């Protein structure tokens, strides 16, 4: 195993353990902290996979802001009684999840290896086009930004509109008088 795949295995194991902890922990605050750890693990794994743009998003949104929004929300909830640390496990749900995960795992063999030069995304003509033309056409060195803001600018405008619409809708529901 290469150093990258070894560290990736370690980080993903950490993320999976954190995800399981987030599910099993009974106290919502503990679950949120475990969920933050999960997001952090995923962010690090994006860095290891050489996707810094996605890693930055995951770290800022998943591990950062979402945690804070969860925290201000659970400040209004009631802590469950009793001293148990973990939820009771619903074995029927576990069985369903196990079947689903097993079905998904069978597809892994058909995925290209990480970093493989034979992967469709590396051999695709579209990838080739962006890598060769993004800089001369847009003067932007980060191809991800060039694709997002120029080639797929209309999609990104749609995304920004979704953020505005979702934000306004939630704010209306929360009835802050300034927005009504």
């Amino acid at each position, binding site marked *: 195993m290469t150093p990258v795949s070894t560290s990736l295995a370690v980080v993903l194991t950490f993320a999976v353990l954190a995800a399981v902890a987030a599910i099993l922990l009974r106290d*919502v*605050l503990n679950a949120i902290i475990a969920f933050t750890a999960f997001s952090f693990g995923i962010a690090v794994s994006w860095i290891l996979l050489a996707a*810094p*743009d996605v*890693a*930055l*998003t995951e770290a*800022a*949104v998943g591990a*950062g*802001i979402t945690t*804070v*929004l969860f*925290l*201000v*929300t*659970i*400040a*209004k*909830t*009631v*802590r469950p009684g009793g001293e148990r640390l973990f939820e009771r496990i619903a074995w029927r749900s576990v069985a369903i999840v196990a079947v689903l995960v097993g079905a998904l795992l069978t597809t892994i063999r058909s995925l290209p290896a990480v970093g493989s030069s034979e992967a469709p995304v590396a051999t695709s003509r579209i990838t080739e086009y962006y890598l060769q033309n993004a800089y*001369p*056409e*847009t*003067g*932007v*060195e*980060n191809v*991800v*930004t*060039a694709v*997002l*803001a*120029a080639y797929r*600018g*209309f999609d*990104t*405008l749609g*995304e*920004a*509109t979704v*953020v*505005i619409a*979702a*934000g*306004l809708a*939630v*704010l209306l529901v*929360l*009835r*802050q*008088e*300034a*927005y*009504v």
Partner: protein
Amino acid sequence: MSQTDPNRTYVESTIIMTTVRVVVPFVFTFGVFVMFHGAESAGGGFQGGVIVASAVLLLAFAFGIEPTRAWLEGPLAQIAIASGGGTFALIGLGALVSGGAFLEYPAYGFGTDGVKYGIELVELGIGAVVSGVLVSLFFSLSQGDFQSVGSGGANSNSNGDGDAAGGERA
């Protein structure tokens, strides 16, 4: 730790206030840098906007949510949301007016520099939208009614989440 009043989750801490006072200018600058520098390195409007919003959230954690809300008095977040979305749409429409297609940056006629600055402006607009939405979401979520939840059981740990002092509610 100090849980004298279960309806009051904000705990004043010199350590947190001092740390935040030192850290926030850097966090804010980094957020704006990520917004601007999305063209040259990793980042962009979405990520930078989130980081800028987290600077405001840090202030709220350190100095209490109500004082921070009062400090940001006025429709700052709404203006950020509206102007950010407006900037993006206007840049698209401007290309249309200049004889190109919607969002066709070369239509402005400044060559690749024009494309690049168009992209930078779009990223800034996205950053304004994202930070405005997140800051107002945070303040709205934290403004709920603690009294009606019933005292005693409220999950008011010492993580300073939420300031129950807010008096005005819809």
